[in-house]
């Protein structure tokens, strides 16, 4: 599976997106801390974290025997550049032109 496939697959699950939101709110959490606020089993959270780590959306660091999870937004920047930025410019211009034309019509 390509890097992009792993990334989109990781993002396709609401539970995994929730985990990313939890890390965004408070970065560097342990598995135990992440489990506290989620209605998922510990095993479920472990599996989701493994997929997020494989997609490089979560980076891990050890503090003694504790494994800390950090949100890694670098692959999201790649999605933004590949899938959003190149499309948004022409569309924003089209919307802007439409708005101008409609507002001009209104004045006539």
């Amino acid at each position, binding site marked *: 599976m390509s*890097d992009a496939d792993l990334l989109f697959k990781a993002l396709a699950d609401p539970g995994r997106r929730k985990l990313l939101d939890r890390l965004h709110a408070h*970065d*560097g959490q342990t598995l135990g801390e992440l489990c506290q606020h989620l209605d998922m089993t510990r095993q479920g959270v472990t599996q989701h974290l493994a997929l997020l780590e494989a997609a*490089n959306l979560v*980076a891990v*660091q050890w*503090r003694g025997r504790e494994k*800390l999870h*950090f949100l*890694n*937004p*670098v*692959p*999201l*920047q*790649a999605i933004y*550049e590949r899938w959003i930025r190149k499309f948004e410019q022409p569309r924003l211009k089209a919307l802007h032109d439409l708005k101008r034309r409609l507002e001009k019509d209104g004045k006539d």
Partner: protein
Amino acid sequence: MNAANRSRFVYVTFIRTTPEKLWAALTDPQFIRQYWFDMTIECDWKKGSPWKMSHSDGTVTDVGEILEIEPQRRMVIHWQHEWKPELKAEGPSRCTMELEPAGSAVKLTITHEIDRPESKLIAAVSGGWPSILSNLKSLLETGEIALVSHPRH
């Protein structure tokens, strides 16, 4: 120190290159300027040496010192912000860059931390790194950068 009294981010990217080329990209000022939004870095990359970053107009934004350096593997920079007063007031931070071979790529990990909770400095620098790393990756892999201007400018 307890994690709650510290602010830190950890960013990771995998770049299809060699540790030699990536290390050169991280230490050559001409190369750095291309992916780091025209910032100038001055350093001779030796342990204990001063490190300085400035805008293209000469305004110094950050200064520091090389705390640890192991070519092609790891460097730790003592990083003091100088430009914005509220960020300067937070005092020194630490930026660690680690390179690890990962198959046909190199895993680059950037950790930036400061011994205070809710750091504005860490929030500010964390916003810039994804674009810088994305530019660095595309420059090394394709010879071109994706973003020409800093998104905040």
